[in-house]
């Protein structure tokens, strides 16, 4: 696997032979939290083994409580020294809103498992564009950093609805040779979608090896369409509905080049030019009724609490 050199990164977490591996103390404690906006927040979870094993592009599945759902979240960062992983979460549904309200520093997840999925293919690409849209800005960061560490020329393009939603600009500037922020309302950087940013970058650089795009399906689809005429390899990270995340249920099947793939084990990274995004979007809505019902019930109990 060629992982051994990386594994020695953090000697103090290396369980010596004869000693018990550290996964025994399973608490999944939240050690830091940052709120980026009224819907987006960051959690840092202490899990030294996971931090040591994590690679860019991989995801974890979390359960806030024993009665909770299993929610797949792509890793936004991992710190092998501190033994932590970072997740950036958008409070949109019942479970994520509940997490936003209740998960403070010092509290714990019921379950965190991972890293899952195949790591991103970071080889010898010389020049890459890392594109993040909205919440997808967070998970594209580990890839941007890994490309930079491998010596690639990294162009970062991130998009938000407005300046007030933006986060991690300094973090990206650190690992990017060029960095461009796009906002829908023009309150920061370029006014327009990330695809405008990609067009600018492609116009400026004729030798781009790969575009990595992470964000909502419609944004990834738009990115893939932007690069298609230029025949630039475009990798997207898919996050369909999952249950186990280990290839066992087939709920996360996606159509890629007319073949069935399971995002949890065959992905989550796929060739953006081959992904059937319409199918992905349709399958993401398969629990729309139930999501609405859960949300309604949750809001009701919340009001009752107040």
């Amino acid at each position, binding site marked *: 696997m060629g992982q051994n050199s990386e594994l020695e990164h953090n000697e103090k977490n290396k369980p010596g032979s004869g000693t018990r591996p550290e996964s025994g103390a399973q608490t999944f404690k939240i050690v830091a939290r940052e709120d980026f906006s009224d819907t987006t927040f960051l959690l840092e979870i202490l899990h030294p083994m996971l931090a040591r094993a994590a690679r860019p592009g991989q995801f974890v599945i979390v*359960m806030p409580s024993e009665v909770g759902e*299993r929610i797949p979240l792509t890793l936004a960062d991992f710190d092998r020294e501190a033994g932590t992983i970072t997740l950036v979460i958008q409070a949109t549904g*019942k479970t994520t809103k509940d997490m936003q309200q209740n998960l403070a520093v010092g509290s714990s997840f019921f*379950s965190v*498992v991972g890293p899952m999925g195949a790591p991103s293919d970071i080889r010898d690409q010389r020049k890459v564009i890392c594109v993040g849209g909205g919440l997808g800005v967070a998970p594209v960061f580990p890839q941007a950093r890994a490309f930079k560490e491998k010596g690639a020329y990294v162009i970062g393009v991130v998009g938000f609805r407005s300046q007030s939603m933006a986060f991690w600009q300094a973090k990206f500037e650190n690992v990017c040779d060029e960095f461009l922020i796009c906002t829908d309302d023009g309150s920061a950087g370029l006014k327009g979608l990330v695809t405008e940013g990609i067009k600018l970058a492609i116009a400026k650089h004729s030798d781009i090896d790969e575009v990595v795009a992470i964000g909502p399906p419609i944004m990834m689809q738009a990115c893939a369409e932007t690069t298609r005429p230029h025949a630039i390899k475009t990798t997207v990270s898919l996050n369909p509905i999952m249950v186990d995340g280990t290839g*066992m*249920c087939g709920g996360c*099947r996606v159509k890629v080049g007319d073949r069935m793939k399971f995002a949890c084990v065959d992905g989550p990274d796929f060739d953006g030019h081959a992904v059937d995004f319409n199918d992905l979007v349709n*399958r993401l809505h398969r629990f729309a009724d139930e999501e609405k019902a859960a949300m309604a019930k949750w809001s009701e109990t919340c009001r009752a609490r107040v």
Partner: protein
Amino acid sequence: MAKKTIRTIPQERTPIPVQAPAKRARNFLEVSLGYRVEDALNESERCLMCPEAACTLGCPVAIDIPGFIQKIIEKDYRGAYDVIGQSNLLPAICGRVCPQEDQCEGVCPVGDTLEPVAIGRLERWIGDLAIEKGWATRPHIEPNGFRVGIVGSGPAGIACAADMAKAGCDVTIYEAFHKPGGVLRYGIPQFRLPDAVIDAEIDNLTKLGVRIECNTLVGRLFTIEQMIDELGYHTVFIGTGAGSPRFMDIPGEFLNGVLSANELLTRCNLMHAGEFPTYDTPLHLGRKVAVIGAGNTAMDAMRMSLRLGAEKVYCIYRRTKAESPARAEEIEHAEEEGVDFHWLTAPVEILGDENGNTRGMRCVRMELGEPDDSGRRRPVVIDGSEYDFDVDMVVFAIGTSANPIIGHTSKIALNERGFIGVDETLATSMAGVYAGGDIVTGGATVILAMGAGRKAARAMRDYLGIRDSAVVYGDADDHDDVALFGMRPTEKNFVRLQLT
């Protein structure tokens, strides 16, 4: 007492009390209520106590069946439990889910003339009694300092763990889900195997000193190689199950409302989708559900759909009832509960509406032709037999292929079908690493997986050099005078050798 003969034993197989079909099809309580004491005593009398017990040979884990039935007759129920416990840690589970008609009961000589002895029901009765009374087989364990890592807490992993723990090893099981039990937990529904039974049996395992680490995805959190090189395991057993659901590659498989039986069952069993929204995991249940396949998993999916409130449940199978791989009892229960069986039928397309939801299915009729490689008559399509019918949910229960995670993350050699390759001792291509259960054979049964776990455990003890006194010296009770190097065979001679 006169010797029992086929004429003197009770002629009728003792029936097992069950919930009425109409009632049980709408609740999640266990279908079969289990024997009462008088039922068990009556059924035990039907055993002829054959000296060359065919049933024991027919059992994948070789339970001394006449031995435990004799103990029941003597009303030494604890003794009966101990006899089973020598070979099988999970009687309450196996009594419920083993295909007895193909194993012990299938070869029972009583079955030549009458119905065979209800061995499974007796085993289950003893298992349930043990749970009720809190019995556990806790042999004297002499720690030997070896560390054993087990990947997967399903039946293969559990059986292997129990044997290695009894041999004195320090055993840790890793499980990717947040609860242990593997397929027993996520696959087999409550009404067939209640959670309380799994909890009790797993509790017995932890009493043997086995540690269970959930939320651990081996291959990704650490690799098999790392378990040996870094985590200090002397030997590793892989029992991850087959677990990659198959679809048929027919049009419409991506429609909403189409799912694998694994997904349906995991949502319901492990994640309690039936109790939504108390539990957060949803299941968008159809009103008319078609389940493709006729194995045990298919039966579970159909009966689960009924209990969740489906109006109509169809079973679509391209062969006939005779070729169906499910346990006889499961088909019988599904029929009683109102599943509509479409034998000799195969789907060719799943039909969708404009919103990407399932609205129907197109099928063809089949007839049986010449026998194929498996010896079963091959189903052939009847020309022009295509027809459509309305369903809004389609469940695929047509088996599984190999889960790729271990293959992707280790150098262990796989076979041509993608399953882990093993030799006759279940050793993989990597020294000290063994594998068994569905990840080696492809989808099979709980008891076969347990048998594989135990078989691997024997080879792992050999690999570690743990001498099995019964194997080395023969049975201690029969050979009082056997003593080698001044040590009696019943002693923990391996440990003594290490100390001296």
